[in-house]
Each structure stands twice: as structure tokens, then as C-alpha cells.
């Protein structure tokens, strides 16, 4: 389907070297999804990486709000 792939990678830098979560192709951050992610973060460490594996617009739109809601507006 896709001939080429541009990949965007967000990485949260932190000093402590622990385990964390990697999110590939984030979906829309509805409150339900954020609740699920918070539950995962509580058990398995914070979200460290977000990868966007597509250049399509409808996928790119979601990543910014996902990034803001999950990593910055904690």
C-alpha cells in the first residue's frame, strides 16, 4: 500500500534510565483513551516515545493533541 514511509519520532528526554512505554501511531485522545493510557502508565512507567509511521493528514492531526494531553498537560 505505502511505497515509502516518513517516520516522525517524539522522544521524551529524562535522566532516570528506567522502563517506559512506546506508542506507535497514536489514536485520538478521548478521555476514555487517556484513562486507559494513565492506567498503563501507572503499572508500566511513563510514555517515553511516540512514533508516527505515516504521512497521511488524518493521522498527523491526532498526534499533536495526543502529545499535548499525554506528555505536557499532566
Amino acid at each position, binding site marked *: 500500500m*505505502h511505497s515509502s*514511509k516518513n*517516520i516522525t*519520532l517524539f522522544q521524551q528526554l529524562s535522566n532516570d*534510565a*528506567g*522502563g*517506559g*512505554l*512506546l*506508542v*506507535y*501511531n*497514536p*489514536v*485520538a*485522545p*478521548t*478521555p*476514555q*483513551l487517556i*484513562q*486507559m*493510557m494513565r492506567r*498503563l502508565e501507572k503499572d*508500566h*512507567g511513563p510514555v*517515553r*516515545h511516540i*512514533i508516527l*509511521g505515516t504521512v497521511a493528514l*488524518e*493521522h498527523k*492531526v491526532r498526534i499533536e*493533541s495526543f502529545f499535548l494531553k499525554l506528555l505536557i498537560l499532566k
Partner: protein
Amino acid sequence: MTNTLVHFFIVFLVSSLSTSHGFQSPQVLHLMRNIQCTKVFPRRTYLETHKNKSYDNIDNFSPEFQSKQNRRSFMQSSAGALLTTIASTLSISPDTSLAASGVDTAIVTPAFSKELSWPLGKVAFSLLPLAATSTRRATVEECVIENTIWTHDQIQGVVNVNVPVRQIVVKVRKVPIFIIFISRYVCIHLKT
């Protein structure tokens, strides 16, 4: 000749085996099962509802009384039908609130709440009628490998073409370099 025959047989066999469930993964099937919870009640015609009514009682032949009797019997029968539909819907599925209000044909949709909405989609796609921007956008979480990989599925689409979108969450261990095979073409090396 035998080679081609064997090849044809294998291709035929494999295709017939694989077409039993299509190429959908169990996660997608699970999602579809969750989404398709619509139920259509059959519409009953007037003749069907009054099929068993007997018309051979012609003792009271005055038109006034007859009309009254007809109206009363119609009201009684309709009330009875309504009660039976309410009882049947309550016994089958208690969450069909639309059917309980006496509507014969009803497509029951699950409730929409703020938990399932993503308001930014309205701004971003205000010109394009994308699905799940003003309608509900439920998420299905599934654990693929225990304590390692999870998937989150949502629906997105235009008008009547809806596709599931999947997010994958991977737990990163304390390994300095890890490798993910995203597709058969792409391989990423990441340094933590």
C-alpha cells in the same frame, strides 16, 4: 504438468482455506462485534395485528355502537400489543430504551457520552464529514502480549466507509537498543 497441477491444487486449497474468515484479525472482528449492536424490530401491519379477530358477532348492529366497539377494541388491542412489545424488549435486552417507548421499528444505538468524544476533530475536519468527530468514538483496548504489547482501536472514516485505526503500545525494557519491525519493509533501531 504435474508441477502445475500441484501448484494449482495448493493455490486453490490455500485460497479456499483462507476465505473462511477473510483476512481480518480477531481484534478487528471483536471490534466489529462491539460496534454492530443494532437491532431492527419487524414492523407489524394492521391486518396482521387483527388477524385473529372474529367478525361474526353481529348482535349490535347500530353504527354508533359498532364504531365505539371498534375504537375500543382497537385501543385495547394496541395497548396489549404495546405491553407485549415492552415485556419482550425488557426480557430480551434491557438497554433498548427506544423500543420500550412503543416504536415498532427502531435502530438502537449505544449511548454517546463526553468520554467518547474528541472535539478537535470537528475543527480539523469541519469541511469533511469524517465519522467519529461528532458521533461517538469508542476505544477498544486489547492486550496482545501480557505486560508487553497493547493495542487500542478506534473507528474513523468518511460517510459510510469506516475503518478501524489502531495504536500500538509497547513496553520498553531496560535494554539500550531495541528493534521494532513495523512492516516487512521498515525496520527501526532506537537508542534509549
